[in-house]
């Protein structure tokens, strides 16, 4: 896509600019390599024969390629059901996050809002003081949310950290349209819905991604609030496969509960199965990070 930015960049090519481009590309190629190889390694192990892996022969290419471990993983009802749960929790949870965070960030972004200072502090304090798990668990218990999806999606309703990023973005929005709307007699709710949110697509996309990933990767709330296996999200299953249980072994020599760890191919297949769905979200959002969105919105 040819943005005005791109055209101007091509027009002022100097030698310095050219070599900068080369170095830049080389640097970013290096970034690609060091970030991609470990993912690639996980992938090739998951496709390889377990015995070849144990012999340490799988380094750069899969060996004894087969889908056996995937067959085992995907045949497992637990994995399929938890995959569905994860998708459900992530979608519902992210929707709640976006609504709540927007409702929270917008008033705090308004410099003329009388409650701004104290309400900001009201939110900020929660970043430093948590009552701890026990009282949180008791609150969720009292609300009757234990062992339901709502405990998973409501408890992390707003991430104050993300909310502040959102607020900063709102503060950076041009104020011209804003003022025009006020003159037109629009109230704050109308301004939020008709001007602020439509103009905030990049940050909405970012927040969508961040919250979705947070939900997808989270296991701790599920661990403490859910007991029914049928409601477990995928990450809990993943952890049961990759985290070595050390606690029972701590009990000195008496407790003979040593186990062989699961085959690496199976563990890595579970990692692949639990990672791929969320990776697919990004390409759909990527266009919002490309420049020019703002100007389109302003002119349209």
């Amino acid at each position: 896509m040819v943005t005005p930015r791109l055209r101007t960049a091509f027009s002022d090519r100097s030698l310095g600019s050219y070599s900068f481009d080369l170095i830049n590309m080389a640097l970013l190629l290096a970034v690609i390599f060091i970030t991609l190889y470990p993912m690639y390694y996980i992938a090739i192990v998951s496709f390889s024969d377990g015995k070849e892996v144990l012999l340490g022969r799988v380094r750069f290419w899969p060996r004894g390629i087969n889908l056996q471990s995937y067959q085992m993983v995907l045949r497992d009802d637990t994995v399929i059901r938890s995959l569905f749960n994860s998708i459900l929790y992530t979608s519902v949870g992210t929707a709640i996050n976006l609504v709540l965070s927007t409702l929270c960030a917008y008033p705090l972004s308004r410099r003329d809002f009388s409650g701004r200072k104290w309400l900001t502090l009201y939110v900020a304090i929660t970043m430093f003081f948590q009552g701890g798990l026990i009282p949180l668990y008791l609150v969720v218990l009292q609300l009757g949310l234990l062992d339901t999806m709502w405990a998973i999606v409501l408890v992390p309703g707003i991430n104050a950290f993300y909310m502040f990023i959102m607020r900063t973005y709102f503060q950076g929005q041009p104020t011209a349209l804003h003022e025009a709307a006020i003159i037109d007699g629009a109230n704050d709710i109308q301004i939020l819905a008709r001007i602020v949110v439509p103009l905030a697509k990049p940050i909405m996309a970012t927040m969508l991604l961040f919250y979705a990933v947070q939900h997808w990767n989270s296991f701790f709330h599920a661990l403490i609030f859910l007991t029914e296996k049928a409601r477990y999200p995928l990450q809990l299953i993943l952890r049961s496969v990759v985290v070595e249980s050390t606690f029972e072994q701590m009990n000195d020599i008496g407790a003979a509960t040593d186990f062989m760890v699961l085959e690496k191919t199976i563990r890595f297949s579970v990692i692949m199965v639990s990672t791929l769905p969320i990776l697919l979200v990004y390409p759909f959002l990527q266009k919002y990070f490309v420049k020019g969105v703002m100007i389109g919105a302003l002119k349209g």
Partner: protein
Amino acid sequence: MADLPAAKPLSPARPGTLQRAGRVLRKDRYLYLIFLLPFLYFLVFHYLPIYGVIIAFKNYKVAFGIWGSKWVGLQYFIEFLTDPYAWKLIRNTMLLSFYSIVFGFPIPIILALLLNELQISWFKRVVQTVSYLPHFISVVVVAGMVVNFLSSDGLVNRIIVALGGESFPWLMQPRWFPGIYVISGIWQHAGWSSIIYLAALSAIDPELYEAATIDGAGRFQKMRHITLPGIAPTITILLILDLGRIMSVGWEKILLLYTGATYETADVLQTYIYRRGLEGADFSYATAVGVFQGLVGLAFVIGANYLSRRLSDTSLW
């Protein structure tokens, strides 16, 4: 603050103040209404449980519950702060955070700027997509990879041996632990964090670049005078927030990477609490340390916020 109408009491008389407050509330009634749901959210899921903090001042026994347990005052705080080992833990925690901020914080910004300068749009998309992948790898797996790469015959030592050097026990040297922690952290999160900056970059008005080009500005000048100022508020806010987390580090990774030999630099508050927790359910002690952590974090944020408000117009509140 100057932009708060309520903070300018022109008339000290009571009825006037009430009237004024009423007027302000009426003016902002929709904003308050918008804030209602978030307000309730924080109230229920953060402020209701916060009463649990009192077990830091009690000897919490399940049999008696939170209210019924015996008050012990500051016993756990004193016990913690008078333990010479605690200071080593605090030092290690803050050093690891400090290194992470000094070396880790600028990288996503640089990455975002470099990406922004890329001319080829498909390449840009590929780098962007690939660089955020490590964020998705579970920390257990990341730690396994770090151990693999740094083990006696891992990738790093193979390269050193190939260049004529000698295999080095990286993970057994206290001196190297912070570096390993920070570098693997950058690898995990730099691409991911750059997304925030990319979003901020997209908000910069393209007309500014066009105007600068007409004025004959070069690439680096534009980067310095348009791009960086454009994302400066985001950078400031993130830095303030990061400073607030100075007492909390990625302890799960540390737990997987440290050995007795590296305790000297690697043992941090949370790993210590974890070990103590395993020995027995020490809820009160753990909460006391948590309160201490929160206080230090809050102090840092207030300080950073104050400085930032003095030096720029960006601040958390």
